[in-house]
């Protein structure tokens, strides 16, 4: 047999892909059970209204309808949906609205029928009377006196307020030579995963056991919350996350439909399926972002930032979903970015509005921070007439300063921001580009060069950083089972849905045990198979789940070495795993086939006295701190001043996510992330009208970037490992989204510099750009 390569670091193609691209994956909608019923929901057409009556009689009489329920029918039978993050005012959140509806899409009634067509037909037979109330759509206006109250019992639309002004802040601000004040809008976004949500619930009465398939990122956390809501033991609920077609944070949640289907499957003693329509997905799956921020920055004439103050108005939507009020805290913590900002003060107002709840969306609080600080850097540069690159260099945390505690109090693990910046500048040919830009301006062409030097927070833990009410903390788990034929099963507590851990974790296990990746099967997303795990979100899976895997592998290795040392009569510490053998490190030709050791462990040929049979181990990794990946993105764009259109000329991304297990996976994550990030900069915006009607209710109106709208991305890496985990990995799932948005915005603003335009709020649609140019021309004339 040929010698095996080392797998870590190799660009191995995703082992998940063949089944997915040939249609052989199993998604929730592929689950079909005998006697399965189908659910549909009636949703509020109003943003804010009193429910006078819901008449279900005609729906109930419709042939094929098994049951129809309104919120009143469920009163006292299903508790409030969970929000585990702390907030001063946490509203009651019934699975079906009671008394009032509070956003367009709020579930009013559920129908269960023998097939999905009948269920949908029956929705049209429900007669519901609503008394419309004035809607509150704008978060800032929601705090004004006299604004309609969304939850009257609180007497305010404020869900929570957080403030921090450290001692010495005013002094730091007063040391500035100049200050700037500006307002930034980080618009509300719709996460738009390819597969909308879906649930199948199956109650096996004889076993008193509920199995729930859900398109979720967090099967175990969902199980814990369902156990509470449905009053079942956690050992009597099995949650399965089969193939999940994208989540982007919007499936890091516990939704009404999951609770409703579990409850009704038990009540009706029949399996039930619900598959979200795209329209429901846009209206009733969590949104992201939605911040208005007032920034005040103080800086010296040389560009050094002395102080930043940020006042946030954060749009929570009508209810608090699982982590809704926790997301803005990551924004506050990451405001300093990769800079030695002298002092930071902030005030955050978390505000109810008559809209769908916001929650995590790719980046979850960090893109908002990165946009704030990276736009600030460019604003300062414009004010001082400095090159934006120079302002960044002036403020960078130097690479020998790590671990570094920022003005927000976070400890950054490692970094080399100049290194990534220099590499990106060299790749793009920055100085030459600036010359070309100047020449182009002479010809009436508007080229823009945008830079963002981002840093973000990943691998969150330690557990103390996560909300106490979240069962389970910031750790992650893994089990390694060497089966009797030496094939290996890895059970991971993370729940990949596009991140590729079936490939990267196999690479880690293969190298540790000296076997082929094809001999490893990575299982996940089934609480009856996998030990408790936390799931996949916040770019945590490899830094935490990968480390748990390394630890579990270590335990298995120890046992195998013990057995091998007995069989080979050499000390275990002199043994290594290589080429399907356990060998003497000093002389690998002295070896024993792995299979012999496995057979000894299972005791069927050479039982080892004093060694417990079997060959598996579990490990749980609690990190001591967070990791901070970073990088530099540079976009080159051209703006058509006649139509406001933005065209990409170049996009260079230099990212540092620590050590790289699989460069293909890293590139894929970054490309997808950059596409979503530039989507926010140029195209995407969740629009509600002044009455709270959702205008972007379909993909005909909500503009996600298509392939032809995304430039070819020139990619490179620098590698600055973390010492917080043995793999040296940091996380890369959200980096592209975080770094790209301000980069593109800065590029467009740079293009518009000759017009004297300093800022336009995202999305930078052609009309906004065209109008700004018209106004600038008018102002010049006037």
């Amino acid at each position, binding site marked *: 047999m040929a010698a095996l390569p080392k797998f870590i670091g190799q660009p191995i193609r995703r082992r998940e892909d063949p089944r997915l691209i040939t249609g052989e994956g199993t998604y929730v909608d592929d689950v079909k059970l005998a006697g399965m019923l189908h659910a549909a929901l009636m949703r509020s057409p109003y943003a804010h209204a009193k429910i006078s009556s819901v008449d279900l009689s005609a729906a109930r009489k419709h042939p094929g309808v098994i049951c129809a329920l309104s919120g009143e029918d469920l009163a006292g039978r299903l508790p409030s949906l969970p929000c585990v993050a702390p907030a001063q005012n946490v509203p009651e959140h019934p699975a079906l609205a009671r008394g009032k509806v509070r956003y367009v899409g709020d579930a009013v009634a559920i129908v269960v029928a023998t097939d*999905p*067509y009948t269920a*949908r*037909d029956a929705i*049209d037979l429900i007669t519901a009377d609503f008394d419309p109330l004035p809607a509150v759509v704008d978060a800032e206006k929601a705090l004004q006196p006299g604004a309609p109250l969304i939850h009257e019992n609180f007497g305010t639309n404020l869900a929570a307020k957080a403030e921090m002004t450290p001692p010495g802040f005013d002094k730091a601000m007063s040391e500035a030579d100049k200050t700037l004040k500006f307002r930034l809008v980080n618009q509300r976004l719709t996460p738009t995963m390819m597969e909308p949500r879906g649930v199948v619930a199956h109650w096996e009465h004889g076993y008193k056991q509920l199995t729930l398939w859900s398109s979720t990122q967090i099967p175990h956390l969902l199980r814990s919350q369902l156990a509470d809501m449905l009053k079942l033991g956690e050992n009597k609920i099995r949650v399965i996350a089969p193939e999940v077609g994208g989540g982007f944070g919007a499936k890091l949640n516990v939704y009404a439909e999951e609770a409703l289907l579990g409850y009704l499957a038990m009540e009706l003693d029949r399996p039930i399926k619900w598959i979200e*329509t*795209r*329209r429901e997905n846009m209206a009733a799956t969590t949104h992201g972002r939605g911040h208005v921020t007032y920034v005040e920055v103080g800086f010296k004439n040389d560009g050094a930032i002395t102080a930043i103050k940020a006042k946030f108005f954060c749009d929570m939507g009508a209810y608090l979903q699982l982590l809704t009020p926790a997301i803005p805290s990551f924004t506050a913590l990451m405001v300093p970015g990769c800079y030695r900002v002298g002092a930071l003060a902030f005030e955050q107002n978390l505000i109810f509005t008559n809209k769908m709840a916001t929650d995590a969306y790719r980046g979850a609080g960090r893109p908002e921070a990165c946009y704030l600080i990276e736009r600030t850097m460019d604003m300062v540069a414009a004010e001082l007439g400095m090159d934006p690159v120079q302002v960044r260099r002036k403020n960078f945390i130097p690479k020998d300063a790590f671990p570094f505690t920022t003005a927000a109090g976070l400890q950054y693990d490692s970094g080399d921001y100049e290194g990534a910046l220099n590499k990106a500048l060299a790749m793009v040919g920055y100085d030459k580009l600036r010359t070309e830009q100047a020449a182009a301006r002479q010809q009436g062409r508007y080229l823009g060069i945008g830079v963002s030097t981002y840093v973000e927070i990943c691998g969150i833990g330690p557990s103390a950083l996560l909300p106490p009410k979240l069962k389970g903390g910031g750790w992650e788990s893994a089990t390694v089972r060497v089966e009797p034929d030496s094939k290996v099963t890895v059970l991971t507590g993370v729940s990949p849905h596009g991140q590729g851990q079936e490939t990267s974790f196999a690479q880690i296990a293969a190298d540790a045990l000296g076997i082929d990746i094809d001999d490893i099967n990575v299982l996940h997303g089934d609480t009856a198979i996998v030990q408790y795990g936390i799931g996949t979100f916040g770019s945590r899976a490899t830094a935490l789940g990968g480390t748990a895997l390394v630890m579990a592998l270590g335990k298995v290795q120890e046992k195998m070495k013990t057995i091998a040392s007995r069989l080979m009569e050499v000390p275990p510490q002199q043994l290594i795993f290589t080429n399907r053998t356990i060998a003497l490190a000093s002389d690998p030709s002295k070896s024993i086939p792995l299979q012999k050791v496995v057979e000894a462990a299972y005791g069927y040929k050479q039982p080892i006295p004093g060694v417990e049979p079997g060959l598996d181990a579990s490990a749980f990794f609690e990190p001591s701190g967070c990791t901070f990946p970073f990088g530099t993105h540079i976009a080159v764009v051209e703006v058509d001043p*006649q*139509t406001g*259109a933005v065209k990409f000329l170049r996009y260079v991304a230099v990212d540092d996510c620590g050590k790289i297990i699989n460069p293909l996976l890293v590139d894929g994550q970054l490309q997808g992330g950059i596409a979503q990030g530039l989507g926010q900069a140029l*195209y995407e*915006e969740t*629009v509600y009208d002044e009455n709270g009607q959702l*205008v*972007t209710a379909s*993909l*005909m*109106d*909500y*503009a*996600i970037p*298509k392939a032809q*709208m995304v430039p070819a991305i020139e990619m490179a890496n620098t590698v600055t490992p973390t010492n917080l985990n043995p793999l040296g990995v940091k996380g890369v799932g959200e980096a592209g989204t975080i770094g790209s948005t301000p980069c593109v915005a800065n590029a467009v603003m740079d293009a518009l510099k000759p017009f004297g335009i300093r800022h336009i709020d995202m999305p930078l*649609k*052609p*009309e906004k750009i*065209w*109008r700004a140019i018209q106004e600038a021309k008018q102002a010049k004339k006037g």
Partner: protein
Amino acid sequence: MFPATFEYHRAHSVKDALALLKRFGQDAKLLSGGHSLLPMMKLRLAQPAHLIDIGAVGELAQIAEEGGKVVIGAGVTHQQIADSALVRGKLQALAEAAAQIGDVQVRNRGTLGGSLAHADPAADYPAAVLALEGEVKLEGAQGTRTVKAQDFFVDLLTTAMNPDEILRQVSFSPIAVGTGCAYLKRPQPASGFALVGVAALVSLGRDGSCEKVRVGVTGLGSKAFRAAGVESALAGKKPEANAIAAAAAHAADGIDCLSDIHASADFRAELARVYTRRAIEKALERCAR
């Protein structure tokens, strides 16, 4: 997304389809590529009781040259039109419009006839069919008739077709020597439909002046239209930059422009003027004699 109940009928010929149309009257809708109708049915905005599928009617799926005209069957797909050497050579603006509709999947299913009959105010074809002065042949129980493109588009989602008629084909005179045409479009970023789409056709006379100018505009108002103000302003003039710009300034004259989250009425009008100028310039580049 689940449509309301309907009955499905497959027509094997135009005759078949006409008989089914007669039988079910207003309760029936013709189904071709399904790319406009099915989404509306899934949202239950359309709930026809009967669908008559003409997707497999071979006699509607031909592109041919007949009596000096290019004749395109209603069932020809966007992709076939975009790929057709005949259309690309003799009706370039139409091929350009077809190539910019939706994405590959849409272009492989959607048809010329389906798009024209649906008359979406932001569809691409109408601009090109107007500028190229296509003639739409309709067939009904009362026989066949031909409607000029200019008379075909009546209002939002409304055409000159009667409910018992089928759109059979569209015929065009191939562009002559000394004539150029082009279709330019600013897509709406979500749907890919035209925020503004402009097709221009220009013929240069022997003296180098614009002998004939035709401009079709889509996306701007409730229906696609011929920009008569632009055409008359440029006709007889030398194709100089100032003259073109002055003519293009009339692109939105008299039009009640649409306004939505993607573009206000003002901006749509401005885009129409810019794209009209650019489409004329491009058509002129192609006016080789």
